[in-house]
Every structure is written in C-alpha cells, then in structure tokens.
C-alpha cells in the first residue's frame, strides 16, 4: 500500500511540470499552428475557420492549406528578415562574449569579500524595467544626447555621430540588455574551476596567456555555450530594441511579425512566421544538447 502510494505520488510530482508545459506551451503552440493553416477573413476573429471540432478529421487534414508557408518563401522579405535577425543576433552574441568573458573572469578571481558585491552590480539593472532601460539609451545615443555631448566637449568629434536609428544602436541595445545573461553562466563555470590547475601550468612553464588558452578557456566551454544560447536565442526574436533604437531599414523577424499581426491583421501569416521562428530556434538547442551529451560521455 505504502509503495503504491509513493508510486502515485512520484507520478503526480512528475506530471506537474508536464502539465505546465502542455497547458502553457503545447496548447498555445497548437492553436498558433492551427491558425497558420487558415486564411485571413474580415471577421471575428480575423481568419477563416479551420480544423474546428473532431468530426470528419481526415477530410479536414486534407483541407489544410500550406499557402501561408509557401507565401513566406515567395516573398524575399521574410527570408531576408530571418537571415538579418540571425546575423544581428550572432554579432551581438560575439560582442557580448568578448565583453562578458573578462568581466566574469575578473569576478571569479575577485576576493571573496567583494564577490557578492560584484554579482549584485550585474543583477541590479534588472530592478528597473527593461523598457525604461532601452528608452534611456535613446537619451544617450540621440544626436544631442549624452554620448555626443561628451565626445563633442572632449573634442574627439566635431559633428554629432548618428547612432540612434541605425543598426549600431541595435547592437548596443542588445549587448547592453543581454550582457548579464552571458556573464552569469560564465561566472558560474569559472568560479567552480580549480585554480590549482593554472598554478600547475605556470609551474610547468606555461605563459599566463598559454595557460589561459589551454586550460581556462576549454574548461569554461559549457559556460560559453550556455551564455551564448541565452543571448542568441532571445536576440533573434527581439522586437522592442529594434523598434525603439533601430532605423526603418533594420530588418528583424520580430518586427515583421508585429507588422503582419497588427498592421496587416494577417493572423495566419503571422502565425506561420512564429512557427518557423520557433523551429529555427530549436536547432541551436538541439546542437547544444548533442554537444553536452558528447561532453558527458
């Protein structure tokens, strides 16, 4: 009896996260998938009914229309938007890594006393709304903004730089916003690293740089991967940063989706864009898992 009860208890405990995923991820996903097979209509909601009810299931499956997905391939705009999003996200991830790695390393090597303070400094910006922080960058980057005033008064430039409303501003915005997501996993791996390995390398005649490349970097690969994914994946679908900081020629898929959904009221195409985006983002996750499996075996 006791064993039986604990068997069910375990089942229930496992079922909760699955239920959570089913209700908040799978069900919405299926609804969006369904809409993506529909066509727009001037109605409430603004798409033709598709796949309603379970009667004549097979006929309904045959009725499914892939028109919206075909449309995504026919108009070069979408492919360009996906590629441009991936490019912007990739470049941002690399810059974030270049800035975040030294930060994380310095934090990991800092004296125990001030380490919590440094950690706090990384987390502190989260206490302010993300939207307000992005707005603040408009004030910094605009032609009469703080940055240009500073550079002009220092005599570095004699004409204000045009940064706001360009891709540069988008890179700055993404790198700034996502830096903590890079630093924290890197810090976690670097902090656990056994520092005696570096001492041993030094004793055996390795230069500090040599020891860094041959020991620190390889041991921190899991942190690099985790941090990069945490930056890259949300950056691909980013909407707020390109909308507020980017120029009108900044092409990103999050914006394209917004336009389809709100401006064109084309829920079916917007859904198709979202489904394709989700599938695209699953690829790096699968690669990451493969690499982790290989690392552990």
């Amino acid at each position: 009896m006791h064993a039986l009860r604990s068997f069910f208890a375990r089942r229930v405990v496992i079922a909760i996260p699955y239920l959570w995923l089913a209700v908040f991820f799978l069900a919405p996903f299926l609804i969006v998938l369904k809409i993506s097979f529909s066509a727009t209509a001037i109605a409430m909601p603004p798409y033709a009914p598709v796949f309603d009810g379970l009667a004549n299931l097979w006929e309904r499956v045959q009725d499914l229309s892939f028109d919206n997905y075909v449309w995504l391939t026919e108009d070069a705009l979408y492919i360009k938007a996906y590629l441009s999003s991936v490019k912007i996200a990739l470049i941002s991830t690399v810059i974030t890594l270049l800035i975040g790695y030294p930060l994380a390393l310095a934090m990991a090597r800092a004296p125990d006393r001030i380490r919590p303070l440094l950690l706090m400094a990384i987390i502190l910006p989260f206490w302010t709304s993300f939207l307000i922080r992005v707005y603040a960058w408009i004030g910094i980057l605009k032609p009469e903004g703080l940055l240009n005033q500073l550079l002009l008064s220092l005599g570095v430039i004699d004409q204000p730089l045009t940064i706001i409303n360009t891709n540069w501003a988008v890179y700055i915005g993404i790198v700034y916003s996502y830096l903590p997501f890079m630093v924290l996993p890197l810090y976690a791996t670097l902090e656990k690293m056994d520092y005696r390995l570096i001492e041993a390398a030094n004793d055996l005649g390795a230069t500090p740089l040599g020891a860094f490349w041959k020991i620190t970097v390889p041991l921190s690969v899991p942190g690099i991967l985790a941090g990069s994914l945490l930056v890259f994946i949300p950056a691909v679908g980013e909407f707020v940063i390109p909308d507020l900081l980017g120029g009108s020629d900044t092409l990103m898929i999050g914006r394209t989706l917004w336009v389809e959904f709100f401006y064109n009221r084309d829920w079916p195409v917007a859904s198709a864009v979202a489904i394709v985006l989700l599938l695209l983002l699953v690829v790096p996750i699968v690669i990451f898992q493969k690499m982790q499996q290989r690392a552990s075996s």
Partner: protein
Amino acid sequence: MFRALCLVSTLAIVAASGSPAFAQDEEKVVNVYNWSDYIDESILEDFTKETGIKVVYDVYDSNEILETKLLSGGTGYDVVLPSASPFLAREIQAGAMQKLDKSKLPNLSHVWDTIAERVSKYDPDNEYSVNYMWGTTGIGYNVDMINERMPDAPVNSWDMIFDPDVISKFQDCGVYMLDAPTEMIPAALNYLGLDPNSTKPDDIDKAEELLKSVRPYIQKFHSSAYIDSLANGDICMAVGWSGDVFQAIDAEAEGINVKYVIPKEGAQMWFDQMSIPADAPHPDNAHAFINYILRPDVIAKASNYVFYANGNKDSQQYLDEEIIGDPAIYPPKDVMDKLYTVDPYNPKAQRLITRAWTSVKTGQ
C-alpha cells in the same frame, strides 16, 4: 526562446479569448476605451454626477491595438473610438460593432452634417457611429530649424516632403514619417495629381517611386515617436496627425517652436468615431454616455482641452477662439474642399500597398 514563446502564446491567448459576457440588468457602469490624452477628465466626473453611472476609463495609443482586441471579442468595453478608415469600416464588416439605437440619442440633432456625410463613406447612413473628433494628416515642423536651413522653405506645401531638392536640406536635422501605408501612399498619389484612392498597380508603383526618391532623407518611420521628438527639438520635421502635432506643441521644450500645416495640395482627413462593440456588456449606459458627449457644451469643453475639431455643429459657439479661429484645426472652406478621404482597401489591395510600403521603408 523566451521571446519566441511570448509571441506564440500572445497570439494564442488573443485567438482563444472570446465568449461575450451576458447582459443582465445593467449595473451603473460604463467601460470606455479611448485614445490617451483625449478628453478633459472633468467631463467624466460630470457625467457620473448627472447620471449616477460610473465611468471606467482605459486608454490605448494605436488603432491596431484596439482592432486586435475588438476582433478577438470579449473586450468588456462599452464605448470605443476607432478611426473611421480603414478601421471602423472593417470592424463593422467583421461584425464587431452594434448598430446605434438612435431613439436613445436625442442629441444627434447637434451633429455637423458635413462631417457625418464624409464619414458615411465608411459607416453607411452613420448607423454604427458618431463622430467625436476629426483632423488631418499634415506636416509638423520646427520653425527655427527650418528657417535656419532654408529661409524660403515652401512650408505650406507637400514639396517639403516629396521634393528631393527641398527635403534633402533637412536631412541633417531629422525628418520622421508616419509608419502608415494607408496615409503615406494616398498622400504620395495626391501629390502626383493622381486619385489618392487609386489601387491600380501602375499608380501604386509611381507612388512607391516618389517615396523611394525621398527615402534617403527620412530618418525614421514611426507613428508616435515624432510627438516627443518634435517637442524636444530632436527632429525638425514630421509627417503626422494634426492632433499629435498639437500635443507636441503643447509639450514643447524651452525655446522650441513647432507648427502644424495642412499642405495646400490637400491632405487626408481622419475621424475618430464613438461606437459600441457588438458584445458590449452595458449598451444602455453606452448610449447614455455617447448622448452626453453629444451635448454641444460638453463636446466643446473636450475640444477646448484637446485642441481637435469635433463633429458637432452646435458646439462651435462654445469653442475658444484659439480653437475655432485656427485654420489648422478648423480649416476654411477652400481648404476643406481639398481634404480627401480614402476608401477601405480590399485584402488584395491592402497587401499590394503594404508590400510597396515595406519596399520603401527597407529599400529592398
């Protein structure tokens, strides 16, 4: 991943919500969903004092957001104020709105027939809506910044925007354009002497070409950012909605002088219409609210506060001189005659125009 999930689940929630609330005996509440900064709030208090109906007031800042909510259904709102074209016209067609019960709106007698007639293009016989405020899509500019760069600038003409020789002089100080194809393509067609209503592919191509010729001088396409940017002196010119530019003028910083013009070639007219969603929980209270706003002294108070023209003829005697006497708010007859309206697009034309617009914006 998180963002992608957010997008997916937002779409899903919007799609799945529905089921109108059932109307029982109406409680003394009316839920009003209006544009931000669009009413003198003392009007709401006076309404409650007079009728005992409590106003729950909520605001939005774009027609697209309102339309998405209306088309999903079950908003719980009793009075909403979509723009007539193309939004209200489409919402009526989609079945999202209910017909007004004119027997409950005795103050309809004060309505300005000129405006009602123009709106009837979108709301035939004005069956579903009553005008609240109307305005134009013109040019807002910073007087000093323009003067500095081109003392003889043709500020009362679309040449400011559509003539590359003129607009190029203002590239360095910043020009914004509405991110709204249904405003900018008709404006370009009108400037070219074509029918602003045209959806012929040839005409759209010409409009696209014109817009592309000035594209290099446009710093940003956005439908609300220009209010702050004009007010702070961050940009020198924007194509925008009259009311928004007046808001910028109202909020302008020290030493900034912004002006709004209706270009002499003509401009598009917009109308914000009081209407009742099909599934409004308190339709009787909604009618009472609309009827109250239709009172000439009440709507005049609103106009005096927000600096927009209204669609109420009898309210004009109560308007401040700076409102009724401003030709940019209440244009004289000859300018009125040049103002145009645009028919709602069918889905095919809509896609054509959106595609042309994306091509202009991204230069692809």
